[in-house]
């Protein structure tokens, strides 16, 4: 060992080989042992674990104000279905336009429209008749939001077709070739087709698959024969725009008014019906709380509107059983004027998914409950967000009609949190 060497050098570099190895082994063993996890023990008498920091609280809040808001002008731009028919005062028709038609220099023959059926809503009986019109004015896929299309009276009837209401197969209608040729000659005249129920069978609304589906093979498709080198060959196209127009024109009692008078809530799609809830207890939760999760629970009343018979015939079995909760950043006391917290548009952390499970609407999973608790209740306690109430909607409220009754007296907001009473020292 040199005169100026230090202890470290002495230990690790100048020692005899075996001792050096032994010390290194000891060092590694110490590091390994130090990283061992501990099995838990029961809290000793001198350690009051239950009150060491505070209390775990599992509480339930009840709303002081419940109502629902109706939006008859949902934007059906992303609707997965194209609906046509009438059922218990509801009416649906749809606009459909194909673009990129074959050029006019090619002769076409026998144009037909194919629609693939998704399902149907209602209690189908007898025959259903639909009319196919040529549209004579421009429209966009958000046509359902415009009043014009709810009173639209098309003039040029291209055909009337009747089906068995129970028929759920693929439907193909011939389309006037002259009309299609006119569109080909003058593209600006191509406003597409409007397909609406004829008369009022009143028993069913048929749901065809729209251009918004993921699978192009199920799209509405225009078939035609194109003359190619003096031979007609089959061709088709499925490129275009579509929009369903939903209306509610009850001949008897309005189910929404009826439900409101009954004190029930309604959640609906097609015609958007959105429950609004206010929980006064949220504002009085202790600020020093760490929220583990929260669950909003509403009981679904599977009874019919107006008749109160078992089985709600307005509840569309084809509808998704998923729903969203939105937070209200602003609202007046009776929830007639409100503003949605738009955070959900930029982050999925503010999108809370509910599902109908065992007769209740509630948050889909424990993960959703945690997300809801942390991002709504915790943010409210932290002063990062306001929560003036909640707004519920179908996850897909633009594809098809469906209406559920909710028992307003059953609504509860379960919140689980840990109230921190002291810092533990």
């Amino acid at each position: 060992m040199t005169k100026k060497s230090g202890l470290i050098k002495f230990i690790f570099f100048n020692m005899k080989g075996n001792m050096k190895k032994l010390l290194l082994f000891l060092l590694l063993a110490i590091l390994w042992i130090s990283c061992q996890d501990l099995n838990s023990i029961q809290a000793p008498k001198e350690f009051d674990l239950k009150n060491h920091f505070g209390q775990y609280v599992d509480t339930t809040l009840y709303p002081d104000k419940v109502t629902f808001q109706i939006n008859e002008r949902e934007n059906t731009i992303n609707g997965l279905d194209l609906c046509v028919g009438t059922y218990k005062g509801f009416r649906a028709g749809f606009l459909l336009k194909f673009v990129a038609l074959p050029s006019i220099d090619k002769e076409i023959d026998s144009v037909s429209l194919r629609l693939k059926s998704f399902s149907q809503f209602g209690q189908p009986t007898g025959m259903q008749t639909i009319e196919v019109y040529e549209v004579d004015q421009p429209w966009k896929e958000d046509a359902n939001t415009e009043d014009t299309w709810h009173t639209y009276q098309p003039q040029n009837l291209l055909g009337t077709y009747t089906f068995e209401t129970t028929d759920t197969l693929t439907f193909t209608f011939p389309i006037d070739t002259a009309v299609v040729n006119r569109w080909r000659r003058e593209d600006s005249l191509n406003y597409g087709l409007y397909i609406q129920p004829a008369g009022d069978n009143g028993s069913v609304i048929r749901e065809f698959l729209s251009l918004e589906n993921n699978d192009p093979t199920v799209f509405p498709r225009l078939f035609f024969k194109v003359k190619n080198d003096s031979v007609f060959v089959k061709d088709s196209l499925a490129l275009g725009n579509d929009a369903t127009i939903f209306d509610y024109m009850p001949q008897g009692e309005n189910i929404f008014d009826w439900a409101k008078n009954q004190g029930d809530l309604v959640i609906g799609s097609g015609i958007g019906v959105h429950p609004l809830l206010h929980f006064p207890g949220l504002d009085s939760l202790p600020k020093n709380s760490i929220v583990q999760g929260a669950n909003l629970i509403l009981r679904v009343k599977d009874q019919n509107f107006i008749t109160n018979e078992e089985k709600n015939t307005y509840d569309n079995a084809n509808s998704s059983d998923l729903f969203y909760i939105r937070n209200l950043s602003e609202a007046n006391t009776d929830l007639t004027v409100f503003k949605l917290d738009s955070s959900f548009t930029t982050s999925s952390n503010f999108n809370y998914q509910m599902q109908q499970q065992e007769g209740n609407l509630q948050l889909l999973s424990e993960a959703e409950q945690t997300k809801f608790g942390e991002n709504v209740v915790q943010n409210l306690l932290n002063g990062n967000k306001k929560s003036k109430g909640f707004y519920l909607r179908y996850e897909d409220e633009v594809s098809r009609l469906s209406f559920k009754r909710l028992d307003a007296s059953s609504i509860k907001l379960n919140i689980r949190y840990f109230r921190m009473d002291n810092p533990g020292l």
Partner: protein
Amino acid sequence: MKINKKYIWLSILVFTLSWESTFAGQSLFGISNKSLGLVRSSFSGTGLARSFETAAGDTLQINYSNYALWSDLSRPSYSVKINYAAAFGDDGVTHNYFNDIADFSGGYLVIPIMKRKLVLGMGLQPVTSMEQRIADSVHTNVKEDLLIRGGLSRVSLNISYKVLSNFGIGLGYEYNFGKILNQFHLDYSSATEMIPLKFKYEYRFYGNGLVVSTFYKPFRNFIVGAVYRPVTTINARIQAESSSAEVNKSQLKKISLPAQYSFGISYSPTDRFAFGLDLQYQDWQNEYKINDQLAGDHFQKYYRLGFGVERRQSKKLFTKFTEELDYRFGLFYGRLNQNSNGNPIKEYGVSCGLSVPIQRFRSHVDLFLNIGRRGDLDQNAYQETFINVGLSISASEIWFVNYED
């Protein structure tokens, strides 16, 4: 002097592991409300082997307890201590609790300014430690689980001066620091699939302290030593890490650490034999306060009484290997600084060890082994049989001498 980078990295490693030693515990005991952990022995490896330290004079070995005795050192000296502790516990129901921990438990560097007269030294030493995971059901399908780990350490900067040939004093500034971590989560029964709620509290301690030490040799072979640390007030910065902004607000509390008294005597009937007695005392019951309030009635007066004997190596330059070793044996008895099940916790055991020279009269490895019993099921919630084994490495060198001249 050109410094090899390897030394720097190794020094950093040793320092880091020494810091990590504050996150260590080795017992079922020490977990109570507002606990800072169990008091750790401030003995060197040799002290742990013979069970006394306060009056142990040595011209080579750094005394970890009584800094006044550093004035006997004639050369710059270093010492580091490595410790492994294991405890086999029993709570009357479960008989096979096992806790163990390994750490670097301190080290010192001492530099004589005036040979055997005035010595400057510094070091790092753990003061308290704990580590345990506790769990309890608090609600249907809900269980609280808390991991507690950490403790206090201190860095000392001390000057020792031999006023007379048989009397010396030491005065030291100490910086107390440490961290205790509480990691909490609520566990739910597997059926609920609920996501655990988690939060963390970190208590960071820091504050200045003072230590006064002395020794007196009324006879050539008799040493009396004493150490006094007055009540020390340190800060505890409390910081939570949770989803709650209110909870996360930082807090500051004043912590009063009890005064520490150490007293020891040693007697050497011959050059190679020494007997010693040691007593350490701290009143955690009446002096451990948080914001001027007593921390709780479950804290106790801590004491540790040790008695031991030492047979030192032969001073002959050439002798058989067994004569080159130091042999030590001791007994200790004490009371921990907090109660268990409402009663004081007694601790007693035997100690032994030996020093193996690496370079005779310059450097040695001190091995120590403590075996003992802690707690009693008739009085306490647990009882433990523990072993404490480790080593300290001590070396002295000549610095500041230019041999080439």
